């Protein structure tokens, strides 16, 4: 089994497609429909890399990013958004993401971005011990 990738995407169909392409790519994807569902699951600590949709019901992608960083997640985070405007880009850049993906994106570009992020990472889960 490959490395654990956490995907937060509220569109179920897109979530399943991303999960599919990441698994075929040899990775171990986990998809959550909202930021809250991820935080409640406690599985954030097991992730090597995260792909966060920016527009989410409730807590959005940026807020989730900030929460994860506060709780000690140091791994690469990739943002995905359909609202590729200046505001969103600025907000993303402030958080130095591993990648910023503008929807629509292909499965290959998603895989490439995730692999690129992981390649700059040590093999262990990137959770700093508090």
């Amino acid at each position, binding site marked *: 089994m490959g490395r654990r990738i956490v995907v937060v995407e509220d569109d179920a169909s*897109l979530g399943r*497609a991303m999960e599919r*392409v990441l698994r075929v790519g040899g990775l171990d994807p986990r998809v959550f429909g909202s930021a809250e569902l991820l935080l409640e699951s406690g599985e954030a600590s097991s992730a090597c890399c995260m792909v966060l949709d920016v*527009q989410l*019901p409730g807590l959005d992608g940026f807020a989730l990013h900030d929460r994860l960083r506060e709780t000690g997640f140091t791994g690469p985070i990739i943002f995905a958004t359909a609202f590729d405007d200046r505001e969103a880009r600025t907000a993303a850049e402030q958080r130095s993401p591993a990648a910023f993906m503008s929807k*629509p*994106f*292909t*499965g290959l570009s998603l895989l490439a971005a995730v692999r690129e992020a992981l390649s700059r990472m040590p093999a262990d889960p990137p959770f700093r011990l508090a």
Partner: protein
Amino acid sequence: MTRALAPLLVAVSQGPRLGPGWQRIALFVFAAYYLGARLGLTLTFAPHPLSVLWPPNAVLFAAMLVLPAGRWWLVVVAALPAHLISELQGGIPLTMVLCWYVSNVGEALIGACVVRAATAEANPFATVRGVLVFLGACACAAVMSSFLDCAFVVLNSWGQTPYWTMWLSRVIANITADLVFVPAIAAWILARGTPFPRRDEAALVFGGLALAMLIVFNTALATDWPAAQVCVPVPFLLWAAFRFGPRGAGTAFAMVALAIIWSAGHGVGALASRSPVENAHSVQLYLLCIGPTLLFLAASADQLRRGVESLGVSEKRFQLVLEATREVVYERDLASGALWWSRDGLAHFGYSRTGALRDFTSLADLVHPEDLPRATAAREAALADGRTLWEAEYRVRRANGTYAHVHEKGFIVRDSQGRATSMIGALTDTSEHQDTEELAQRLAQASRLTAMGELAASIAHEINQPISAILNNVDAAQALMETGRATDDDMREILDAIREDDLRASEIVGHIRGLANKRTTQVETLDLNALARAVIRLALPTARRRGVMIQSNCATLPPVRGDRIHLQQVLLNLLFNGMDAMRDVPVEDRVLSVAAEVSGAGGVEVTVRDRGHGIPDGQMPRIFDSFFTTKPDGMGLGLSIAHTLVTANGGRIWAQNNPDSGATFHFTVPAAG
């Protein structure tokens, strides 16, 4: 006659009453009667005891003419002491004095009754008919009272004059007196409250009259002048009557009468050249000819003046009506073809009045060529069918070349045989109305585009989701195939997912096309639940972005009739309006509830309830006005467009503030079938 007498009988039947100012009336009657009697004695033709006119009777007549019948008794009572004082001085037996009193009062009563019975005019001297009635009343009163008078004289064995000779002289003297004094007194009292006009001119005419009389009647010099000199005062008399009405005529005539009688009685002036009896007859003939002429002239001049005045008032009112209704009115004389336009009529369309009157001989010159058949058809049909009314709508060319939309309402004037003699048309400029409708349509379009702008981001998000999913699935499938581990089930699952996302994308595209197309109304039978779901789905991304939760609660609904795009637009606008309203409330309170249920009227009522700031007091009536907004960056079009579209679809839209917070918007859609 009976009907005319009714008010008189009512007045009398109400019984005698003093009424206000009775002392003044009594004093006036007493004084005037006494002075009249003294004047009558003064005006006798010395040395014969021949009075050409006896004023006291006229004083009573005038007083009764100006007073309501219920107060005539006051006149009768007040005159008695004056009568006794003046008559008893002459050493006449009391019985004779009292008899004369009865005949004097009788004459006044007869005259006043005849006038009251024959005319309802308050001032009989103001109309020609009134003057005619007055003259008739004088004759009646003089003839009838003189029978009594002479009978009393004979019964009292007073004097030796034969009955009929005495009767005739009494009749003429009484008519003359009434003619001279009643108008002079009554016209002034009846016209009290109306200022006497043109004092300078009055001074000139009455000064001239006095001078003329002085020369003609009161100088010994005039005795030798040709007889025609009696005409000298006539121009002044006519002048006074024509220019100053009954008051002018009465006053001038009384002046002349007094002067002429006094001078003739004293043997001076134009009518004093013969024996006293002949002179007296000359004077009476002169006065009887001139008096009625003056009264008629004054009355007809007065009527003419009032007619012109009321015509002016009516004309002014007519102009005000035209201005108030902003209607352009024209009249065409069908015999001569002459065309008349209301004063500002052509100016309304930018034409100068004189130029346009010269250039346009027919309304057809101004009508848009395309509309000409439409403009004339209704009128021609009305003319041919013998109807009197028609209506038409067409365009009229303005001076600047543009066209005004007008609504014409016409009326055909017909003679007694039913032939059309002229027609009158009133044009209402409906351009503004038409422009407003066009603007509303453009705004509806613009609003859809604005909503599109607002929605563009949402739609991009919405459509990018299935596209992203498809792209990921395609790559997953390709990668699976490359590994050679791909099973049929894996591939089927992926293809199904791709089809589903494709359908989702095309559905969204369909919505966009529907919103953006310029189109005409298409009424169809609709499922409002499905429509609401589609609209909510469109609004959902924006709602998420703004942290707004949309709750929907749709009951089982009957099918409705309406334009799908219109109703989608209405609901979208209300959703965006609700979201805007909750911009400043905490995220957890940003809940927008959409509900649809069967309304009382049989259709469906949709409600959109927000928890925002609500509608401020006093602004409720204006919220559906165009360009009215309470939002810092709002255009004020959303609700106005919603209103327009709901109304166009036969529904109703309204809003109310919630008891707790925010506002609820309602609109109805009529049921299908």
